[in-house]
């Protein structure tokens, strides 16, 4: 395939074009300050998008991850408060593990009962959210109670700058976390047998099992990793905004799925890449950010996200159908 036909190149081209256009309307867009804040907004959606990408390549879809993320985040912080633990590493392991366990639940229903992933994840997402609010609690944990180590971790920058007026700004180190996770997933998808198995499953699950892929293993891998990424992102999010709200992330699934589809992943499975997804996430965040800067009402942002999903899906569906014709 010629390089200019690759979806990533097309997406990058569109992204660049959009950036130039936005820059023309609003020159402040290109300021380092704005770029840093844009990248910061990429982190959480981006990490979740990596999980959704994995699920979508395999031919499934996941709408439960915001619930898993919020549950992992809230449970972990509650636990930290309960045990009076102030650290960083263990909590993230715990959050990812909680997410992975929830993901196993998805995998169990998808594999064992051959259920449609959309229905499974709608159900598990709703259950997890309900249990969290009903059993664990509904109160927001504010900055005064939040574990300090998490806040400090969330505050760390890799680049710090001082504005002429003396205020500082910087690029959050969380971007590095996101990039490391993305590169890892890229390598898993591209260079490991289980990663290729995910693509094979998305291409033709029947054929995948015939050539000897272990569909059960792959299904559990997909949904557990997606859950773990969601759980991880959830905790990271609370560290970045310095509070833990058990009602957080409502409606986020749409944004993330929009970003993944925008990044060229096929809703029919079998196609999608980490780089494309990262570009899709950047594009979505940038568009939403620009709408805010242009002081457009948040309700209209929902319209834009909806339009993006429909158009991006239409384009990829059209591409895939043409390829199959």
């Amino acid at each position, binding site marked *: 395939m010629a390089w200019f036909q690759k979806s990533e190149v097309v997406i990058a081209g569109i992204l660049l074009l959009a950036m130039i256009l936005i820059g023309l309307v609003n020159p402040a867009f290109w300021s380092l300050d704005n770029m840093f804040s844009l990248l910061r907004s990429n982190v959480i959606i981006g990490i979740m998008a990596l999980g959704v990408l994995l699920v979508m390549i395999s031919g499934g879809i996941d709408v439960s991850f915001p619930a898993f993320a919020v549950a992992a985040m809230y449970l972990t912080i509650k636990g930290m408060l309960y045990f009076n633990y102030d650290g960083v590493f263990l909590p993230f392991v715990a959050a990812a593990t909680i997410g992975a366990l929830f993901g196993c639940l998805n995998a169990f229903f998808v594999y064992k009962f051959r259920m449609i992933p959309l229905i499974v994840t709608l159900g598990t997402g709703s259950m997890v959210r309900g249990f969290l609010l009903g059993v664990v609690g509904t109160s927001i944990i504010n900055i005064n109670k939040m574990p300090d180590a998490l806040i400090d971790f969330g505050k760390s920058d890799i680049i710090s700058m001082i504005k002429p007026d003396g205020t500082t700004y910087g690029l959050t180190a969380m971007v590095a976390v996101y990039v490391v996770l993305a590169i890892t997933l890229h390598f898993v998808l591209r260079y490991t047998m289980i990663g290729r198995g995910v693509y094979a499953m998305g291409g033709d699950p029947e054929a995948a099992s*015939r050539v000897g892929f272990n569909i059960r293993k792959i299904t559990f891998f997909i949904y557990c990793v997606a859950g773990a990424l969601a759980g991880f992102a959830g905790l990271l999010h609370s560290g970045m905004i310095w509070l833990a709200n058990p009602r957080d992330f409502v409606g986020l699934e749409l944004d993330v799925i929009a970003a993944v589809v925008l990044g060229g992943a096929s809703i029919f499975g079998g196609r999608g890449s980490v780089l494309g997804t990262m570009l899709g996430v950047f594009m979505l965040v940038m568009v939403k950010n620009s709408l805010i800067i242009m002081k457009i009402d948040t309700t209209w942002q929902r319209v834009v996200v909806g339009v993006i999903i429909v158009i991006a899906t239409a384009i990829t569906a059209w591409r895939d159908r043409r390829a199959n014709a």
Partner: protein
Amino acid sequence: MLRSGPLFHVDGLVMSENFIELRNVRKEFAGVVALKDLSLTIQKGEIHCLAGENGSGKSTLIKIMSGVYQPNAGEIYIDGNKVENLSPMASIEHGVQVIYQDFSLFGNLTVAENLAMNVQLREQRQVLNWRKVREIAKEAVKRLGVDLDLDMDVEKLSTAGKQLVAIARALMSDARLIIMDEPTTALTGKEIETLFRIVKDIQSRGIAILFVSHKMREMLEISEHITVIRNGQKVADGPTGDFDEALITRHMTGSDIISKPYIWDQQKYGSMPPRIETTNLSFGTDLDNINLAIKPGEIVGVSGLLGSGRTELALSLFGMMPGYSGTISINGVQTVLDTPQKAIRAGVAYVPEDRLSEGLFLTQGIDRNMLATSYEKLAPGLLIDQDKAEEWVETMIRDMQIATPTGKKLVKELSGGNQQRVVIARWLLTNAKFLILNGPTVGVDVGSKAEIHRTIRELTQKEGLAVLMISDDVPELVHNCNRIVLMHRGAFVEEMASADTSEDQISDKLKNLT
């Protein structure tokens, strides 16, 4: 007939000429017997044909050899050694490779990755080396002696190209037996020749091939040994030289099918205007100046390869290809058929090839399926005339000889043949006078097939229907049509009266189309 290769012992291991041997294998699904005490032996390096009608148990047998199904009883021997609980992985390790009709390839991945996948999996690699993938792919292509673009996504290849990839992939797995399931279905005559050359070449390396087919001519041409199964039982096996087409047919169907060609009652219907007539019917590159007239009582067969425009012809006559040029007349009146609704009102009926996805509501009863297109007539006002509906359904079940105690029975519980009759009955209820049948007996068991043929012929004769029958099955056309047109690249290339045409002639003509 039992056959066994000479046995001899080397270091305690039993060596034999036989690669795989099934002894009295039995397989049941929920109490229904799919295979009954079936024995089959495939020798090393032989081309063996497994013949049987659709539904005779061929696919079950393949799945037992490939380890997908476990037999309920019986034994499997590979290289003379008994194998217990043959799993898909174990079967592959023994060198059994199946090339399914859908090829089991990954359209979203490149040719190279598809070719290398099995080797990578067998070596139980965790990490993929893309340079190695390329090497394996190159080797696979070289072994098969074909030219394939390794970087192309498989879904962009032609059917023949995909098949080559599937065969090359099988060879890379150190195959000792390659099972090909209906490999010639979607190939052109030239491509079939290429395939046969490759099959012979594979054989020359000592690899056995099980060629699963229901096309007599191909079996006789390619194989050395033929096994015929019917209703899950082996009914014949022996060297190919012992068989001819008539004999295979007799074994496959269990009866001599009386091949009396259908004769059009010209005296009765000759003076009537054609039920359907087209002049210069064209549509893009799909249809090229089609002139066709079918009079009442005629059954006209259309033969041609996939993509010859035969399906487009059917669709255009059913109003599903608006924007055609040329004219269509029904009963002598010129009509514009640009929607299926108009076609139905004009008395046209279309029974699609894939009745399951296009024609039937499987989870509904026979009655509702039959009446699906007739509710308008049953409900002149607001309410459906239930008595009349019941009466219609009962009449149709009787006329079409559908095996069911009641019209309430769900269609999914019927056999393929009975399902097909439900579809045809539905159209007869609309008072259709022109019936388009696309592959009317695909996936239908033998007994039902003959019954369906009989019903179609009788109805046409008696009611003066006009029928356009499209089929891959040449004997089906020869036995049921009074004339047959050969289609190629959207045009009619030849018309034959079936009374003075043999199956061979038509098959030869089909083969020579490119």
